[in-house]
């Protein structure tokens, strides 16, 4: 439940209670008062329950706690904050603005397919697509930590996919003459490794 809406409901009851307490008809006022007291106590008792449930949803673990910060890097949030004049860019945004924020778009080659992969905390999630030459692969960082992926080609050549802050997307285009095993790794987290086989 949205915490702001919950607060709205609670405050509305208090306002109604305050206004109706001024009613001068004592019998009516007494009955209304009893009802209002009942409403008040119900809201008072339910509020902690609802707030507690919201707290669970927003986490106890450090991963979820900092993923709230990761939302700050979402371009839509940035634009909203900028419009409100309240946005203070984090250090990471100054140095590594996301590609979406830079409005970088590169068209796909004719006949090529766009595939999507995701990067979690310490691994690239398994994928089900079969990549072909010229296809583009986009990798989204769903973790709350920064990564720096690179691809090692069968001949040892290394292509950097650049620093990837949480929420950011990097992409790699399968070479025209690709064949063999291409290894995705992370400079920052050597444990991340995934092999992708490209066949003719």
């Amino acid at each position: 439940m949205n915490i702001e809406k919950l607060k709205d409901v609670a405050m509305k009851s208090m306002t109604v209670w305050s206004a109706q307490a001024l009613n001068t008809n004592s019998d009516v006022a007494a009955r209304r008062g009893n009802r209002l007291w009942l409403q008040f106590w119900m809201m008072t008792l339910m509020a902690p329950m609802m707030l507690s449930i919201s707290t669970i949803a927003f986490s106890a673990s450090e991963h979820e706690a900092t993923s709230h910060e990761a939302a700050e890097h979402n371009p839509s949030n940035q634009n909203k904050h900028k419009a409100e004049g309240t946005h203070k860019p984090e250090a990471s945004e100054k140095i590594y603005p996301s590609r979406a924020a830079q409005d970088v778009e590169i068209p796909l080659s004719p006949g090529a397919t766009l595939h999507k992969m995701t990067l979690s905390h310490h691994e690239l999630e398994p994928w089900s697509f079969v990549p072909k030459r010229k296809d583009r692969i986009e990798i989204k960082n769903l973790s709350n930590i920064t990564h720096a992926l690179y691809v090692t080609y069968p001949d040892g050549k290394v292509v950097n996919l650049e620093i990837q802050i949480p929420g950011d997307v990097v992409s790699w285009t399968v070479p025209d003459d690709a064949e063999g095993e291409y290894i995705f790794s992370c400079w920052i987290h050597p444990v991340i490794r995934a092999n992708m086989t490209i066949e003719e």
Partner: protein
Amino acid sequence: MEKRTRPVYVFLGLLLTLSMLTVTGVSRAADTVSKDAFRRPVGILSPSNNPLTMEKATLGKTLFFDTRLSRDGKMSCATCHSPDHRWSDGRIIPLGSENVPNARRTPTVLNSAWLTSLMWDGRVGSLEAQAVLPITTPHEMNFDIAALIERLQTIKGYRQLFSQAFGDEAINQKRVTQALASFQRTLVSNAAPFDRWIVGDENAINESAKRGFALFSGKANCVACHKSWRFTDDSFHDIGLRTEDIGRGAKVPPQVTLMQYAFKTPSLRDLPINGPYMHDGSMLNLEEVIKHYEKGGIERKSRSLEMKRFELTDAERLSLIEFVKTLDGGHLKVDYPTMPE
């Protein structure tokens, strides 16, 4: 009126009870989740291409303590990775590296079975690969593998140990490194007071240490990098130290800015309480270390995004230190091997 209001009071009472239970449940849930992240594993990891066996570990222990693995016969792996110094050497920089530029402090080999990258700059991906380096480094053991193998083959006791470990007497680089790696994998921290607290013994650590843990996981945010039961994320961070050594930056392209001046997060288990700390041994006590983090380190493009300033009172700093002390499981008991002849 009474008959109409009684059910209302019962209902209110139920709501009150439910609220209290919910709030209590949340606080317990939060507590359990945080502690669970630090639970010790049950077994020891080993790779499929070098499964851990008692015989390989025994051979590896013998090699580890044998000074004949060095050219002049005076230095063994245990010279720098000494059981008496928590499997490091207690020195700011290692023996023999006085004239080596940017020499780095000897890391411990405790809990190395779980490492996915080794050495301060992560240049090596396995214990097997790492084992060769000190043997062949000029200012360390200063030997070459071919000569070492030739030397070992002349020692009957080693031929027997290799046979027990690998099925025949053949001695080669692969087997030497596999045996050394196997022994190192058996070096696992003892259960510390913190571990007993994690599994429910509330008397295992004092209240100051518990407050320290709360700071560690909260305001000080040490847990951002010092996570898991080994208190390391096995990642690399520039923590803003004043140093000429660019660490992992020398092993990755320069455009990977975050890796410049970045070093591997060390474990906080079994720390020598009087240091030295950091890759260069530049800090000699935990208070100095904590104050460095409070200040946030040198501001530069490569500085870790986790390095954020915070403030601690003197009492809070002491609690944090108290907590770190609870991660000490004490010295490992070692039966020193008899050198084969």
